[in-house]
């Protein structure tokens, strides 16, 4: 699971309000190189919850991202920032671990890189 996905997911148990971002418990993290595509990154940047990305990256051991999202001009001018964003968003993988709901503590397991977001029948 890459952080781009972590940034999209919440705990959707019925009635839970404080359900994002899911805290990452990492057991195995790997890195895989991905082709750098600035257009795609610019499009995604606008959709990303920055703090969730920064915290997510930290829990996977990557601490280079700035605390506050730079403004969109940086996307045009600052290639080194774009590379960091690219690395955090697409190249870090949580292979094994869990995503934990901040409110209920419900754990969604991540196994072989696949987050299991299916709810139990008493949670829907």
């Amino acid at each position: 699971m890459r952080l781009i996905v972590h940034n999209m997911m919440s705990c959707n148990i019925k009635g839970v309000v404080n359900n994002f971002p899911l805290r990452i418990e990492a057991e195995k993290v790997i890195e895989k190189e991905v082709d750098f595509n600035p257009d795609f990154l610019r499009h995604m940047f606008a959709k990303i919850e920055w703090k969730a990305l920064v915290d997510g990256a930290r829990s996977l051991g990557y601490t280079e991202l700035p605390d506050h999202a730079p403004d969109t001009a940086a996307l045009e001018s600052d290639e080194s920032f774009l590379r960091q964003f690219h690395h955090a968003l697409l190249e870090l993988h949580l292979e094994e671990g869990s995503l934990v709901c901040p409110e209920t503590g419900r754990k969604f397991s991540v196994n072989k890189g696949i987050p299991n977001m299916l709810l139990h029948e008493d949670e829907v």
Partner: protein
Amino acid sequence: MWFLCVFYHRLLDFRKPEVEALAELFGEEIADNESLQWRLPEHHHNDTPFHFVQLSSEEIAQNIAKRSILVKGMYELWGEGTCYEELKDSIQSYPDSRKLPFLSSGSTFRISVETFGKALTFDEQKDRINSLTYIPFEGRVNLKNPDHNFFLMEMDESEENNGLPPIVQRRIFFGREVGFADRKLLPTFQLKSRTYLGPTAMDAEMAFLMANQAKATSGKLVYDPFVGTGSILVSAARFGAMTMGADIDIRVVRDGRGPDCNVWSNFKQYGLPMPVALLRMDNNLPPWRSGLKEIFDAIICDPPYGVRAGGRKSGGRKILRGTVDPYTVPDDKRTDHIPSTGAYSLVECVHDLLHLAARMLVMKGRLVFFFPVLRDENGSEVKFPEHPCFRLVAVSEQILSSRYSRVLLTMVKVEPYSEEVEEAARLMHLEFRENHLKWLEDGNIHSSVFKPSDSSQIHADSKTFKDPKPKYRGKYV
């Protein structure tokens, strides 16, 4: 400019929509509510391989042809006629300024003869080429790798046209090739050679057509909520798109048949970039964070309608039977618990898909999906699902048996998603459901399309069904 667009005689309903989607992808300006302009050659039936299409540049025509699956060739037409004399007049009156640049002495060329519906001997072909001496070819012939490819195409009026629709009068075309489809993709990607296959894996040709309808290309993110073995995303990735998929079945999406036989390996096999994400979730109850929207450029899928793999959703009712209290999973069983699931009806599945697309597609993003229909002898109109955020831009039917077909629907997001839209969507959905239920009640065996257990009935029925199969190969191909 008008181009002669010659199609393969396959998947007839998919041919023009493919060209239209690709035209947009390659920058043809098409106004809202409009489509490309098409014209038929004289005396030709709509199912003919020959069509004229208007495009603003040769470059666009070439790009469309190269990327397409069903375009045999795009040509600049130099002349046409019902006989060789007429053809000559027609070619001679075509402006020299258009012809001479391709006939110059420094260039190489080849003329190919193609006949549709009949075969010519080598000598007959040679005679036809020799009859073109009135065209001032100055260049050298190069059969292997010419600068310019010319085609002489002939279609006869005979009844037995080898599966093509009959025409009233012979027609001959002569033109310069601008581009053609790369069908070499198909043997490379055919399912036979795919490492990880499931019973409902999408055939490679269809998967590419779907990716073309979705305008998949580099820098775009394409999502399949019913990803299965990933065959649809493989085709989108081949065209350069980033991909993401989800499925409710963890064995399919995570395990496959082992470390080198799973959804990932299907991408690795072709050297394609891996999906950005694969996850297990229920499209009836997706875990998107609130506020997330307009993230995908296209959504492409073959939803679980039950024809082959019935849909499931979270929250099975079976376990609840007999208990009064809500069912609770015991704490010690939670980790490995396999959540039970309930049946997921077509109406619900379609509703969830449209909702997903309305929220998660960017404006002008495309939703491309299959929808099953019963072939109706009375020809009554099929009601397709609707949503206020979407405009239906293409409907392509593929006939699967004498009783049912599947229709590939292409919808474009034309309105942003909002609360008001949600209400309008709810009403449209209720109407769709109502219609759908009525259809079921009317004694229509529509349900047999969706229930595999009823397949024996489909069989028995088809014996008495009078098949209006046309004399030529229509949508069956």
